[in-house]
């Protein structure tokens, strides 16, 4: 696949890559040696910061900068790898963990050096049972090889790693809910500040990063920040594993340099919509990103900044394509139902707003809505956005709001008067 640029996926289909032997044969765990034996923690941190690597879990925050927020000094510090991957459309972390678990573990050990973390966790969604087993086995191998333990590679530094399986709630992917869940509590987001970097797991300084973010660390340490920056755009350096799904002929994960044309991802790599159909629109960054119409979105470069400029976001980097056979009203209802189902209920606008939105959309699809309902749907989204405790509420309101705005006529077509006139015509 010429258009892909494979770094994380370099050896992804190598048989046996999940075992430490194969991983090492292909050059694995050299970066850890370098980070622990040739570099000081400050240098590791500096390199990660320099690389400009942005978080791949949703918010796109600089990974190195976040690590630098952790206080220095001698105390228990934590690193949590967010492997909850529960957003509709996202399945890149699954492949990364299933096929190349040691790349992630190596990344964690390196990030632990940069952040001074001694206790690390991988919080993996419970449904990823196979991947959890694979990680468990890989972690055991890494302990056996001395990359993990009380004395990593004889440097005296302690890095312990535990794989923790979630219990099936999307909200536990939100970093602070993840921490509560990990502590054995109900997975509800916490108020920020304090930010996890200062007061996270068990009240200690905590670095939280996505699987893909951490999987980049070995490569940055091996080849250097400058090398990493030679990929992607200035504001979005590196490559991105993009999950493409929906109405495309070849759904799957594709690793591309950030900034490639979106069209290349959807049409060339994923094969575009089935023959004779065209891209009506797509979610550029998972189900929580505002939808873009085919016309406005296909021409955009696939980068954090371009998506943001277009009023959407790159998010977790998961594209869901829909063609003209998809009813946007149905899509809106499906999306709203997901967020209604997953809303933790802690804060009012999200708890009640997702519920209300679903009820209104259901009424709309049944042909029982009045024109005012569409105004109310739009207004409820406005009333959610920016008013919630975490961004789950916004994650429904933004795409639904965008759908109503960009595909208004489809909503109007479902109105009570329209269904009456349709029925009248049929009679």
């Amino acid at each position, binding site marked *: 696949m010429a258009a892909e640029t494979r770094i994380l996926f370099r050896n992804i289909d190598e048989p046996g890559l999940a075992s430490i032997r194969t991983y090492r044969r292909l050059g694995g765990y050299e970066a850890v040696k370098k980070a622990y034996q040739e570099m000081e923690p400050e240098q590791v941190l500096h390199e990660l910061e320099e690389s400009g690597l942005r978080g791949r879990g949703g918010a796109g925050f600089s990974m190195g900068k976040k690590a630098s927020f952790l206080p220095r000094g001698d105390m228990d510090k934590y690193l949590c790898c967010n492997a909850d991957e529960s957003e509709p459309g996202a399945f890149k972390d699954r492949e990364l963990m299933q096929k190349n678990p040691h790349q992630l573990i190596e990344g964690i050990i390196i990030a632990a050096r940069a952040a001074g973390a001694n206790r690390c966790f991988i919080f993996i969604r419970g449904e990823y049972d196979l991947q959890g087993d694979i990680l468990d086995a890989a972690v055991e191998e890494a302990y056996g090889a001395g990359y993990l333990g009380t004395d990593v590679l004889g440097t005296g530094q302690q890095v312990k790693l535990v794989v923790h399986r979630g219990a099936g709630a999307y909200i536990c992917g939100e970093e602070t809910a993840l921490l509560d869940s990990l502590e054995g509590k*109900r997975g509800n987001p916490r*108020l920020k500040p304090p930010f996890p970097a200062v007061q996270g797991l068990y009240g200690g300084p905590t670095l939280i990063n996505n699987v893909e973010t951490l999987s980049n660390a070995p490569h940055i340490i091996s080849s250097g920040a400058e090398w990493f920056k030679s990929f992607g755009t200035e504001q979005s350096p590196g490559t991105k594993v993009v999950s493409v799904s929906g109405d495309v002929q070849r759904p799957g994960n594709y690793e591309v340099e950030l900034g490639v044309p979106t069209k290349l991802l959807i049409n060339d790599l994923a094969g575009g919509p089935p023959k004779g159909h065209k891209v009506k629109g797509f979610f550029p960054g998972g189900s929580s990103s505002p939808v873009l119409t085919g016309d406005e979105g296909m021409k955009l470069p696939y980068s954090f900044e371009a998506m943001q400029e277009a009023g959407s976001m790159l998010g977790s980097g998961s594209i869901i394509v829909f063609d003209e056979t998809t009813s946007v009203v149905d899509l809106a209802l499906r999306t709203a139902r997901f967020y*209604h189902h997953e809303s933790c*209920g*802690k804060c*009012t606008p999200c*708890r009640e*707003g997702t519920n209300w939105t679903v009820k209104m959309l259901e009424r709309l699809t049944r042909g029982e809505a009045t024109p005012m309902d569409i105004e109310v749907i739009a207004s409820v989204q406005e009333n959610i956005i920016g008013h919630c*405790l975490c961004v789950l509420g916004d994650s429904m309101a933004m795409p639904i709001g965008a759908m109503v705005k960009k595909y208004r006529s489809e909503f109007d077509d479902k109105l009570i008067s329209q269904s009456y006139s349709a029925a009248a015509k049929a009679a």
Partner: protein
Amino acid sequence: MSQPIRNAVTLNIDGREVTAPEGTMLVDAAKHGDIEIPVFCYEPKLGEPVGACRMCLVEIEGIPKLQTACSTPIRDGMTVYTQTDRVKGAQNAVVEFLLINHPLDCPVCDKGGECPLQDIAMGWGPGKSRFTDPKRHFQKPLPLSPLVAIDRERCILCYRCVRFSQEISEDEQLVLHERGDRSFVGTFDDRPYIAPFHGNITELCPVGALTSYTYRFRARPWDIEDAGSVCTLCPSQCNVKFTVRDERALRVLARDNEDVDDGWLCDKGRYSFQMLASEERITEPMVRAGDGTLAPVSWEEAISKVAAGLRDAGTASAVLAGGGTSNEEGWLLQRLLREGLSSPNIDSSASGARADLVRELSSPALGSRMRELDYADAILVLDTEPLNEMPILDLRIRKAVRRTGAQLLVASEHPSSLDGGAAEAVRFAPGEAAELIGALAAALGAPGYEDDGPHAEKAKAIAELLRTGPDPVIVWGERLFRTPGAVEALLACAKALGIDKRLGPGLLEVPESANGRGLREVGCLPGAGPGLAPTQTGAAASGIRDGMVNGEIKALLLSEADPVRTHPGSEAWRKALASTFVVSIAMFDDPSTAYANVVLPAESHAEKEGTVTHPDGRLQRVRPNVPRPGQIRPTCQVLTDLAATLGQTWDLPDQPAVLAAMTDDVDFYAGISDETIGGQGVRWQELASGRSWGPAVGGRTDNQGDPPPASAGSGLLLGTYRDLWASEVTERNPALRFLKRGQMLEIAPKDAETMGLENGDGVRVSVNGTSVEARVAIRTRMEAGVGFLAEGLAENNGNALVNGAGTRIEVEKTAPAAEFEAAGMGQKATVLSLEGEAAAR
């Protein structure tokens, strides 16, 4: 850690300059500028804000998103807007969201008229709803507990009740089930929420989702009056207000006082208003007739009977004061006895507290304020179970551990509910307090103490943690006085820690009775007169009892005291009371009034006017909230009349006059008046007269605690403890009756094994032919070789067996646990009957 100093910060809210201490949250700071920001989930009593309801969103200059004012600490120069269109839009949105699933059944909701949701919806809501779909439904109301009903449709999911259960009382029973708009509050296992502080959630709930069965449909806010008083059911002396309708108390609410109770009440205090208007109450004076029954008489006749009995006894009279006896009453009692009858025999507890030690312990520098617990580096809980003996203190200690990371240390005979949160929890055998504390004194380097005994290791561990920081607080139980040498060792520890040198850290005693400290300070202690001044030594409680039996003491006046129930040696007390002239001032018939020749009705804490003294030295006012039922007269007046009949003219026409005379007499109370006490109370140590008070030396009395028993059997060593619900209050308030408990013999697993006993087995526990029936409870955090019984139960009272330290018990199995199960008296049956009781309401 000492109390932090907070600088003033100035900011601008809605164009007004507002100044407040740094660290203040915006909502609170706004109040300084007379600006109200609506809140639902914010409740500082519950700890850190959670930002759940989103009602308090405001605009802050320089921050693009609206911010929650409840969780944003103020900064110098901050500019805040609470009235802009954007803010109003957000407020309207949140109110509209909150109401879409709210039943709006205000006309039949108990909260109506005092409901924050009503108020905020009116003040900050859009005025109408655009919601036309069906609302969420739940079955309602359901019993959350036998005392609290839950209406889940009304719940706005503010999390307050759950936070209370999880983070304040730490009973961890309440949780939110499900998620999103399907979330609902319940206990984690769906069994009744039974926990000693759970009534607080009805006050925390900002809507009518949690209501008390005892108050449902009883009154509307416009029918009622609120008045403040102090709960005198235990030494916590929580500040309360009674909701009064048609001269009857219908509810007890907290009257927040951070220096006392942090705004919480225990369920005992909250639900015990029912007994005030109980049919069973003694409401007129009574005299025992020849046939042994009590017959009502006029006050004049009763007083002349009492006067005659006391006059006959003369110097052989004695007084025992307890319960909610106020300072004024205590002072009059000791005056009546000492001046009117020239008798020195007065006591106010069963501990045998020694006047010289009490005096030393009362030194202002040694004592700790309640609030000091919030800043303590380490807290040692020494042979007391706050949950049972001073419940609110339990919450305060938990708060210190949870919020400020205080190191908690527990050293006690009986397993403690605080063990779980303690950095170190040690047990010692009943009667070994002096050894353990002596070992601690040695470990702290106190002169004259040396130890290499069995407690040395434990003591070292505690000593080390006590030195975690400069500010330790030692909470200790009055029962330490029962063990000779224990309190001396405690004083040595305090000195070794240097806490007698600095304000702040110190000792906090948990007295045996609600006004234990006050009663001693006004002179209800053998060997100490008003102001703890050395005076002629008299008999302590156990001495009075023995004197009654051997004829040295001929008359006893009980003021809200029931020694048969609450003092060790119930049988001996019965014998003593039966052989002398007894007067009892009591609210109800109790095991001691059964022997009284004259019974005088006592005022309750909702009727009395007077002062009490908190264990930390804070004088507080008990105020009349409801009229005295029947013929009841103020006890102060009764005592004055009695004195007059005995030839003493006091010229003390009313309580204010008594207070004035008393504060004249107790030198460290000088200058204290109703005004200085005010609504929040005042610590005498913080007034000029108190600060300079130094205890006089001398006047040492001998410890008059019970002597060790002659016979040392071979059985388990008997230990006893007080239980929160083992009291008359539980029985006299119908709402609390379900909490009445039976006797349990608590033993260590090892002993259970050797004795062939299992949990729930029925046993007979005996000492020298006296026995009580109990069920076996095996406890893991207990020392082997000891058996514990609860004191103060109406039946099978552990006190019946106590005969000084070192009592040993014989245990005989009477029925296996299975038999109780079969008879419906097992664990499961208890829970079911609770559910039945609640459902029947």
